[in-house]
């Protein structure tokens, strides 16, 4: 919402400067986006009198001009404008002045042998208009040497305010002035609207033709005919006023509507009555009905939209934009003025659907004053009569003004209770009254909001009015109580676990990433997703259309990009949601990590290509960090399809899959157009069991010597290491403290289809030092247990 200072002063008696007004506006909730003070911006530009303009000696299209600026000798400039001529007055910039359009300092130059010490400016160069065909011509009475802004009528600050969706009343200079007056910045002096008596019955009737469920689309429609008008340019002051806020003056009839729209927040429309067929009606559009609007575009409407129509066709998209075919032109003689009350929600929806913003929609969707339908029409009539002449009909009205006003019981104490602010009761009453509220009775008062404040719902809204006008800066800072003298822990076990997991992975060398929750559908499909239920209806980009079923595709996509940048070795992880469907809650908090590359090259040969055992180690480290103890549940071979079928594993607790890991399937790598090797893990963090015991058991080391014995077993190649280790452990549960696999061999010396697996067993007695015989007996048990469970034989 833009307005100029002089316009504001039509409604507000004030001496306040633009800057003061702007600060106050922001302070009371009308946030100032910009204050454009053209007078200040153009203060270096002066009125110049062209003493002489003659053809440039060396160029046909250039002129050599001498410009008098009221002091010193006339200044020589070279000018290319076709309208530069002796005796004119223009806007002059001396060398050294910054030209607004380019932001560059104007320099003394020599153009084809003639020195130029300044410039006569075009509207475009001053960023006042798009006109660059010629230089600005100032009126003859402009005083040479005075600031050009004054001669241009630009000595007026223009303030742009962002209006929140609840403040329809402040889409007008009137409403803004009212707020400012309440805030103590002057006195409201908006002229009242005098009715204009009609001289004859309106020849057109108006009807509201809506099905019962759509009656709110247009509750009231008032109109009148003015015949015998002469449409021409509006008065200069009106044109200046509209131009100052960036509107293009069109004609007197159209400018009337724009002026009242900004002045009073009352959108209107004027039809050329001679182009209308029969009576007027407001109705819903028909599906597919088309309308060529005033912006020159044809819109296809639907039955959710409201239109103003005559007996033949729709001529205006209600509350949004009028039609081209029935618009007023210079030839218009009879004009029909429409002032209606359109529904905020429907108007907004229509504008959105048609992608059409307009000053009318801006106001209707914030809510206009229902009591100002007829006054707005009267005001428009008065201006049309003043500017264009003509003879007004009586007003016809269909529907009526809905009165939704109701009294709110309001205790002044509420201001202190909610706002933390002590405002004296008389001041509360003063503020509310100044804003147009009716306040009656002793406390608690009965407060009724004015018709233009449909946003007022209850006491909390009244507190807001009082607090914002009294001044939020007066709200004191009040310490909150501490629920406990010393703060207690607040994180849930799950939240704590996620933190531990992050830190543990970072310690291992992983870089944490955070990526979008949406990925390309084709990619999602590779990871068990990509179904309709996980699609976004309105993705930000066509390839960010699917909720990710896993975090891994995000890591792979990121790694592929980094790989293309030359990072061969990467370790990335993320924690976040993986989605099972598009239902709320159908998501799991997961952690995924990816290792990529052959290992950083080193003279130490200390690194190796990323493989399944890296991923397994990462996964186990993560689980241990989360649980505070090693994860001992068995791991099964195989993982989902995006992993290498022979180099991947799954860790499940019962039916709940806790983690999967492995090398990435080559086809998946190909999908991401990246090179392996790559190994990854995915862990469902919320499936990690909570540790039940707190603290540790007592420390009781055995005083007796532990004994290590090695066993090299030959087993069938299909037998897993885990099977052998579990078999060995089962042989002497009390005695065996640890079993580790220290060698794996297949090849020469071991029969085809079999492998040699060497384990080291640590025997820890607790009741006495082991004798040779006891050790031998244990070894025998170990060998026979391994043989029984896995068919292992000792390698000879």
């Amino acid at each position: 919402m833009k307005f100029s200072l002089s316009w504001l002063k039509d409604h507000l008696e004030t001496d306040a400067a633009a800057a003061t007004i702007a600060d106050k506006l922001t302070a009371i909730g009308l946030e100032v986006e910009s204050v454009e003070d053209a007078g200040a911006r153009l203060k270096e530009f002066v009125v110049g009198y062209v003493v002489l303009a003659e053809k440039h000696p060396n160029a046909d299209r250039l002129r050599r001009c001498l410009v008098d600026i009221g002091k010193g000798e006339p200044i020589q400039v070279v000018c290319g404008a076709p309208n530069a001529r002796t005796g004119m007055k223009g806007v002059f910039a001396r060398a050294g002045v910054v030209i607004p359009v380019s932001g560059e300092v104007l320099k003394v130059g020599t153009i084809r042998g003639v020195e130029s010490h300044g410039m006569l400016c075009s509207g475009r160069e001053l960023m006042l208009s798009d006109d660059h065909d010629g230089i600005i011509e100032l009126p003859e009475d402009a005083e040479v040497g005075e600031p050009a802004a004054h001669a241009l009528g630009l000595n007026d600050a223009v303030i742009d305010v962002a209006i929140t969706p609840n403040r329809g009343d402040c889409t007008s200079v009137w409403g803004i002035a009212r707020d400012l007056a309440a805030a103590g910045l002057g006195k409201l002096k908006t002229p009242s609207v005098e009715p204009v008596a009609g001289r004859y019955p309106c020849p057109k009737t108006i009807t509201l033709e809506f099905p019962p469920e759509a009656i709110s689309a247009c509750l009231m429609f008032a109109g009148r005919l003015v015949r015998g008008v002469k449409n021409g340019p509006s008065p200069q002051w009106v044109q200046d006023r509209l131009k100052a806020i960036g509107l293009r003056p069109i004609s007197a009839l159209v400018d009337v509507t724009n002026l009242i729209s900004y002045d009073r927040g009352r959108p209107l429309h004027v039809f050329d009555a001679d182009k209308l067929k029969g009576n007027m009606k407001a109705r819903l559009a028909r599906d597919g009905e088309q309308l060529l609007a005033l912006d020159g575009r044809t819109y296809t409407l639907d039955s959710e939209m409201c239109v103003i129509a005559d007996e033949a066709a729709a001529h205006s998209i209600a509350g949004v934009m009028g039609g081209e075919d029935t618009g007023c032109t210079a030839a218009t003689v009879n004009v029909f003025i429409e002032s209606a009350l359109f529904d905020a929600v429907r108007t907004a929806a229509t504008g959105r659907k048609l992608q059409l913003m307009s000053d009318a929609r801006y106001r209707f969707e914030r809510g206009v004053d229902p009591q100002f339908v007829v006054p707005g029409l009267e005001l428009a009539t008065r201006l049309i009569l003043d500017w264009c002449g003509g003879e007004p009909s009586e007003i016809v009205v269909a529907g009526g003004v809905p009165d939704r006003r109701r009294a709110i019981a309001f205790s002044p104490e509420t201001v202190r209770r909610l706002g933390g602010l002590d405002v004296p009761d008389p001041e509360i009453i003063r503020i509310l009254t100044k804003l147009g509220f009716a306040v009656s009775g002793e406390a608690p008062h009965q407060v009724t909001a004015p018709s233009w404040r449909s946003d007022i719902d209850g006491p909390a809204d009244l507190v807001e009015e009082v607090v914002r006008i009294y001044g939020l800066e007066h709200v004191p800072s009040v310490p909150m109580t501490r629920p406990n003298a010393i703060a207690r822990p607040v994180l849930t076990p799950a939240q704590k676990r996620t933190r531990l997991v992050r830190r543990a992975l970072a310690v291992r060398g992983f870089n944490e990433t955070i990526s979008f929750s949406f990925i390309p559908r084709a990619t999602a499909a590779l990871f068990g997703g990509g179904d309709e239920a996980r699609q976004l209806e309105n993705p930000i980009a066509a390839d960010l259309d699917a909720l990710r079923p896993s975090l891994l595709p995000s890591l792979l996509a990121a790694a592929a990009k980094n790989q293309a940048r030359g990072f061969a070795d990467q370790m990335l992880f993320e924690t976040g949601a993986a989605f099972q469907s598009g239902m709320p809650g159908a998501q799991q908090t997961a952690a995924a990590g990816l290792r990529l590359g052959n290992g950083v090259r080193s003279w130490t040969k200390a690194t190796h290509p990323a493989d399944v055992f890296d991923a397994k180690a990462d996964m186990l480290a993560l689980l241990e960090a989360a649980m505070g103890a090693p994860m001992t549940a068995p791991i099964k071979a195989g993982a989902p399809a995006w992993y290498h079928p022979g180099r991947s594993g799954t860790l499940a607790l019962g039916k709940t899959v806790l983690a999967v890991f492995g090398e990435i399937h080559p086809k998946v790598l190909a999908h991401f157009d990246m090179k392996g090797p790559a190994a990854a893990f995915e862990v469902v963090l919320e499936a990690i069991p909570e540790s039940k015991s707190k603290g540790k058991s007592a420390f009781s080391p055995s005083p007796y010597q532990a004994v290590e014995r090695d066993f090299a077993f030959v087993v069938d190649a299909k037998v897993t290491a885990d099977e052998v280790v579990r078999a060995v452990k089962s042989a002497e549960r009390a005695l065996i403290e640890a079993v580790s696999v220290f060698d794996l061999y297949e090849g020469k010396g071991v029969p085809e289809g079999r492998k040699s697996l060497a384990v080291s067993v640590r025997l820890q007695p607790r009741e006495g030092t082991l004798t040779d015989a006891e050790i031998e007996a244990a070894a025998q048990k170990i060998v026979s247990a391994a043989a029984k469970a896995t068919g292992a034989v000792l390698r000879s």
Partner: protein
Amino acid sequence: MTDIAILERQILDAVTAAGDEAALDAVRVSALGKKGTVSELLKSLGAMTPDERKANGPAFNSLRDRVVAAVAARKTALEDAALDARLVSEKVDVTLPVRPEPQGSIHPVSQVLEEVIAIFADLGFSVAEGPDVEYDDYNFTRLNIPPDHPARQMHDTFYVAKQADGSRHVLRTHTSPVQVRTMLKQKPPIRIISPGRTYRVDSDATHSPMFHQFEGLVIDEVTHLGHLKWTLEEFCKAFFEVDAVEMRARPSFFPFTEPSVEWDLRCDRSGGQIKFGTGHDWLELAGSGMVNPRVLENCGIDPARYQGYAFGGGIDRLAMLKYGIPDIRSFFESDLRWLRHYGFAALDIPTLDGGLSR
């Protein structure tokens, strides 16, 4: 010179001359072995008379002791020399780089979130979380944004496709639905912050279609705007690690709060860095307000008895401000260079006692 003296001289010379352990051992055997010269002398004592033995015994024994000591000393010297030689041969170029160890890092959003939680936890706020896909009802309707209300357009909502049961949900546009969920299941007093991913159809240098918000909610019988102001001031001082901040309040509009207030922070942006508490610039900090009685009603809390405040801010935005990160979109591009540059070391754990940042 006696024979013994001559013998001793010969042996000791041989010991000294022995160049390695084998030669020394040969000398030792020749002197102290079964048939060694010194051993023979000692044996000869057995055939002597007591007087002769008395006369020669001490000399022979002391000769043996001196030879043993000389051999041992020489042995030590030879071993030391051998060790020295080995150590010299084992010299490496210590300027060679160490074995590669990857440097992990924590994303700035995670780090800043931990900082924020550390601060609010001290005030007794717990951390509430909710799903990314939300019911329209929780994201909008219960927050006093009825269907088709123009205020919904402030949100640029992502919609998820229709589900099998015909329902249609949104990606939450703020973490306020977590407030709804909390109020529906917990009786006042309530003090929570709700951090998490949020989504809006928007993308430029200061907007990302996914970003992170944290919201605070306090519901009890007494909390008012003054408490809100104090909370945000204390938060800013703690978070930005400065002694004083100056805040400016602007009335605003949010359907879920009434009155609604936006807060700006005084700062100085000259010189490319942000300083707080000084300067002529104002930085938008948070949207906030007193929870709208309609919202309390919608969440089963009696607005005649309970009241409180809510506020919301961007975690990414706080990270950008505190750590000088220019473009929000870069947060989610997973560029390894960016992660390493702006990321935090694994052990940089923010605490109130040790300070939030290094």
